[in-house]
């Protein structure tokens, strides 16, 4: 056996510092992604490191760019609904509703209370589903496996509810311009209510695993702090903005779908660090359940599509076969799409990830002239070059998890 040379502690220290001197002034470039478990999609972070410390961070997006806006400008308004599923694919129902409402604002359509209640219900369910994933995967990014298992099980139950309602678990395409695709099935409200009842104790159990978890707290408290001024200047919205203490929630500030009829609180953070962002999401799930219970209690009867949407909906099949007028109308809607008035509208709604906005320019006719999607993840990610310098490389996973973005939403 070869004789090993004994090295004193002093020697090792000298060697280490000599090695450090050699590398002094040299930053190391490191790519995280495009495909990496913590990038939550196809995101590349081009970073410069000084040892373990990040000195520069440059996000590279666009790997998932599908040209959704170009597609929208080449098809009728209703045809674009399935494409909105693929934006924030963690909460497709919320995207469907926001898009439909933007176009209805252009058309000047008013949906009846039952339709609004259905839409509000599915938006809140989508919020729960999105935040469950946000919290669960965030925990996993910080090294906690169990919460992820719990939240995924709960999300599966929600997906079963979505399947009953829309016919699809993931890509729901539920709304239409002026209404929803179909009425709620019988007994569905009871099952939603049952879900809420059984979900609350599980949610408590899940969040208890994280909220007072020493490791989770140490990894998230004081990490990735976003100041109020920065958050506003960068256009950050949603839970990420509210964690900094700005009380901006469009459900309260510019109520739509009758949000002003229901009681709920908007959780607001104080420090804007990763821990606060987690707390806000956990609390928002509870508030959503509170809203859902109130909606179910006072669920209105009546039509689930706008009566004055005759120009938009296809006439009933029986009338198409018997009446010339209806046949012509059916033909026009199928070939050219529902006619919209000229105008420009901008509609924004509070989606799980932040504020989703649609800017629609119409020159009349059945096709939007310009449709711009203002996606929350795009703005939320743009702050990374600002907050990352000064963090350690291991903090990146936590910061990315806490921002809760979806690349499909970011790149569109």
């Amino acid at each position, binding site marked *: 056996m070869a004789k090993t040379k004994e090295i004193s502690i002093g020697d090792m220290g000298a060697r280490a510092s000599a090695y450090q001197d050699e590398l002094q002034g040299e930053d190391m470039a490191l790519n995280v992604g495009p495909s990496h478990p913590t990038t939550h999609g196809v995101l590349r972070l081009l970073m410069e490191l000084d040892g373990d410390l990040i000195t520069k961070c440059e996000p590279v*997006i*666009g790997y998932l*760019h599908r*040209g959704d*806006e*170009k*597609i929208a400008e*080449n*098809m*009728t308004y209703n*045809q674009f609904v399935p494409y909105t599923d693929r934006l924030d694919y963690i909460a497709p129902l919320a995207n469907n509703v926001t898009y439909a409402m933007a176009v209805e*604002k*252009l058309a000047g359509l008013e949906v009846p209370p039952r339709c609004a209640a259905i839409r509000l219900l599915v938006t809140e369910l989508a919020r729960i589903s999105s935040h469950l994933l946000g919290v669960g995967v965030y925990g996993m990014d910080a090294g906690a496996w169990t919460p992820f298992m719990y939240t995924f099980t709960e999300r599966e139950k929600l997906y079963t509810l979505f399947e009953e309602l829309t016919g699809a678990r993931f890509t729901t395409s539920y709304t239409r311009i002026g209404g929803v695709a179909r009425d709620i099935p019988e007994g569905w409200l009871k099952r939603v209510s049952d879900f809420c009842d059984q979900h609350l104790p599980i949610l408590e159990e899940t969040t208890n695993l994280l909220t007072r978890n020493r490791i989770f707290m140490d990894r998230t408290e004081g990490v990735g702090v976003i100041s109020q001024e*920065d958050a*506003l*200047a*960068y*256009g*950050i*919205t949603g839970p990420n903005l509210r964690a900094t203490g*700005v009380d*901006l929630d469009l459900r309260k*500030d*510019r109520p739509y779908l009758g949000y002003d009829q229901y009681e709920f609180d908007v959780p607001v953070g104080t420090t804007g660090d990763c821990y606060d962002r987690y707390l806000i999401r956990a609390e928002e799930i509870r508030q959503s359940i509170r809203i859902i219970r109130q909606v179910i209690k006072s669920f209105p009867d009546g039509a689930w599509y706008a009566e004055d949407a005759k120009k938009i909906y296809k006439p009933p099949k029986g009338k198409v076969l018997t009446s010339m007028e209806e046949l012509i109308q059916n033909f026009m809607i*199928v*070939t*050219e*799409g529902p*006619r919209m*008035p000229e*105008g*420009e*509208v*901008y*509609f*924004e709604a509070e989606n799980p990830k932040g*504020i989703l*906005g649609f*800017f629609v*320019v119409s020159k*009349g*006719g*059945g*096709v939007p*002239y*310009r449709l*711009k999607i*203002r996606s929350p993840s*795009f*703005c939320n*990610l*743009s*702050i990374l070059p*600002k907050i990352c310098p000064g963090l350690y490389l291991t903090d990146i996973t936590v910061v990315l998890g806490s921002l809760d973005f979806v690349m499909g939403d970011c*790149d569109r």
Partner: protein
Amino acid sequence: MNALIESLQPRFEGLEPRKSSDHPAVQCPADLILPLIECLRDEFEYNLLSDVTAIDWSEEESPRFSVVYHLYSVKEARYIRVVTNCVDDENPSVASIVALFPGANWHERETFDMFGIRFEGHPDLRRILMWDEYPYYPLRKEFPLAGIETELPDSEIGEETKAKVLPAPMMGGPFVSKSGAPMSKAEPRAKDQSWTEWQKKTSLEDGGEDK
């Protein structure tokens, strides 16, 4: 809300109310965009820049490009839309507002990427969604829906693999027709068949080899 626009008008020459279906909107001359947005931010508390985008009014129109800003006031819970036309149709450009809202950085990069509008004074105007050497501006109206045949971003890999970026096949694609066209042209069909399909079709008509 018109009061806001009226109070702004004496200070910004050429500022006009713009037709809008919902939020108040102003049409601003291109050289006043920076002071106007600064004024809206500091004096009228529009402290959240929601969106920056552009509209291409097609090749025949002049001015061709409009840049659209949406600002939101957190305190008052209201929006304003600011629209400005780019002066030059061939090489459109507008002053950058990154100095006022750092969040405009990515929005302006995206608008540059998609429309080719230059933002003067932008600290880092590069493409953001397409790759750096991409030669076209996809959201311009003359750009076909299917896309255009392009070299790969890395030409060396392209040469070695003989690979190219091909237009997407549009056959059986979204059945769309141009609104306002005569009925004969309004039959449902794939809106713009891609170049490859068109080539195949013509060679068939000429009695070509492709069968």
